[in-house]
């Protein structure tokens, strides 16, 4: 689950960059890593501390794909949409995942276990089509394998 928003932690992360305005992207990246999304409070605090208008911070937070303004599930599923994966039928994997998880790309399951996203190319073109789940690359993935893989993650996720 996403951690409680800890204001102290937010300030601690920002303080690593000595209030440098140019560190805005890096600060948001660290915050994203810590909380797995960008809580609203965090954006306001970053704006205050770096003295960059909130509109600019919001611009950065929405411009780059890596940032999410909504809490993400325990496991992030990233379906590679690179050319090699597309040519090898990667789009069918996304359809199957949407169907099995009963969510659309960009959404999180109700039990907050999975968030489904598309990624622009993981650079694993030799293993196409690939899906990355919780940082693990699943190579040469077929639609058939998806239910089993999701089941395993769900099992591990409940235990944790």
């Amino acid at each position, binding site marked *: 689950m996403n951690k409680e928003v800890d204001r102290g932690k937010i300030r601690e992360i920002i303080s690593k960059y000595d209030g*440098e*305005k*140019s*560190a*805005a*992207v*890096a600060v*948001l*990246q660290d915050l994203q890593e810590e909380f797995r999304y960008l809580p609203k409070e965090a954006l306001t605090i970053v704006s205050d501390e770096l003295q960059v208008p909130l509109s*600019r911070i919001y*611009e*950065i937070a929405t*411009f*780059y*794909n*890596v*940032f999410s303004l909504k809490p993400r599930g325990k496991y992030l599923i990233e379906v590679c*949409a*690179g*050319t*090699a994966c*597309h*040519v*090898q*039928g990667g789009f*069918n994997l996304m*359809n*199957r995942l949407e*169907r*099995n998880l009963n969510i659309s790309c960009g959404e999180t399951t109700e039990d907050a276990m999975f968030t489904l996203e598309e*990624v*622009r*190319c*993981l*650079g*694993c*073109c*030799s*293993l*196409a089509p*690939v899906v990355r789940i919780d*940082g693990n*690359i*699943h*190579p040469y993935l*077929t*639609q*058939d394998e998806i239910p089993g893989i999701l089941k395993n993650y769900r099992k591990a996720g409940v235990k944790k």
Partner: protein
Amino acid sequence: MSTINTWDDLNKAAKRGLARLLPAKVKIVVGMATSGIASGAQAVYDALAKEIANRGLDIVLSKAGSMGMDCIEPIVDVIAPGKPRLSFSKMTAKMVPILIDRVVNGDLNGIQPAYRMDEMELLLQGEKKAYFSGSVPVDCSGIPQINELPFYRKQVKIALRNCGMIDPENMDEYIARGGYTALHKALTTMSPEDVILEVKTSGLRGRGGGGFPTGTKWESCRRAEGEIKYVICNGDEGDPGAYMDRSLMEGDPHSVLEGMIIGAYAIGAHEGYIYVRNEYPLAVANLQHAIGQAREAGLLGKNILGTGFEFDIKIAKGAGAFVCGESTALMASLEGKAGEPRAKYIHTVEQGLWNRPSNLNNVETWANVPVIIARGGQWFSGIGVKHSTGTKVFSLVGKINNIGLVEVPMGIPLKDIIYEIGGGIPGGRKFKAVQTGGPSGGCIPDTMIDLPVDFDSLWEAGSMMGSGGMIVMDDKTCMVDIARYFIEFLVSESCGKCVPCREGIYRMNEILQDICAGKGRRGDLELLGRMAEAIKDGSLCALGGSAPNPVLSTIRYFRSEYDAHIRSKKCPAGVCKALIQYNIDKEKCTGCMACAKKCPVEAISGERKKAHEIDQAKCIKCGVCMETCKFDAITLS
């Protein structure tokens, strides 16, 4: 690690490194780049460590990057004194005890190597070191040598010289292969102008996309006014289907650093940045590690090699925006802003990062620099063809047998890459096209198979070099769908600054979606052509300027396929879901029920041993039935 100040210090490090590369006792090396790990290399590494410990063996276990032939990973190399280096492919943890039996007890029956290496090429020194002396041991003579394999025969490794050969975390191994000797040569025997002249003589052109002459760029940046200048490494490898920069940063990070330090010396810069894609965590880690080592050894910092030259490098992580591969957008991102490009009336070599002179080159370009300085620009320009010198790394992926990274001399015929190195198309299917240049590039049809692969020939063919992605397509790839795919990609990656790009590609996408959905209209292609011109003319940066290329090149070479979609409402390749239908051939169906079980929407019905049927109303056209059927009973119409 001790400081490296002199030629002697470098030699000492090289000696230490060589003792690791040509060890006095058995050494086992596991290929642990991202592709290796994704194929299971970590489990193999762990199993090896356990087996070695359990048996109490005196064997060194080490890691390396990728040799390029990713389709046979995980790869494990065994270096034993008096023997060639042997490479074992597609390793699993289960095969580890058998491998160890072979190494320790000489049991040759269990597991066979894919290839052997008799000697190691030291490119920078221009020499070779044998793994053993005398003739090839009898038990190894039947194993093919690496350069006898079709995949490697025509390859010339310059940028990828160390990938797969060294432990990326060990600087001594890098130095043993001539690393940092070029930097020593540049700092102690050459003026900055000499360095620039050497790079100009080499004819090196930027490997990131545009192909701008590197030496000229450096010269402009050196001449630009300003006290503070920057050198930047573009590691934001955004082209989908290209991953050579990832492999380089993961497998040989010091070559990128050395190139940048030489460049900084030539330009007169003291600060450098490497902008790496967020999607490449291992590349970030290995670069960070290498920077730490270089600082500790005095190869980065205030007094590099004791010459008084000062330079340091910081890493910045990208945040997932394709447009940040564009130089001005990348610099905006480094400044902590949204990565929007700006007009380049004033070049970035004059006013780039924080409005100061900035020289940006991509990863592969930087990795070539040490070789050019060590071997000379003249030597480098002798490889390749007249206006495209040296080599280029391509990621050969898609519908091709030998998938992987290949480095070939510029000007090599496309045919050699596809059929010889790549080993042709899987399943004996027909080669249809190859896509190069990412979303800015185009598709080259089978009729142009003799095309020499260099900057200018690709440009004339309506495509471009780009960063070197080469996605091979067969007759089951729909060219209209490919054009739609790239345009859809660009719709979501356009930064939105220029209206013709933001709105134009959006509209092109709508038209292409319609064509793929069977709602294409006569005149659509002409309209796409007119819009393409407007978008090209009206966009500031290369993203918009080249966005229509995938559409234009597919219309140019595959017009009949567009016509089939628009006029006959058919997708000849059987890809566009709205235009295809899966059926069951009643003659061939054995009623095994395999497809019915796999169908995710229960659209297939039928009794055991009787022909099945597909309910077209339920069918979502995912194609699982076709993948499942062992009797070719599923047909596409």
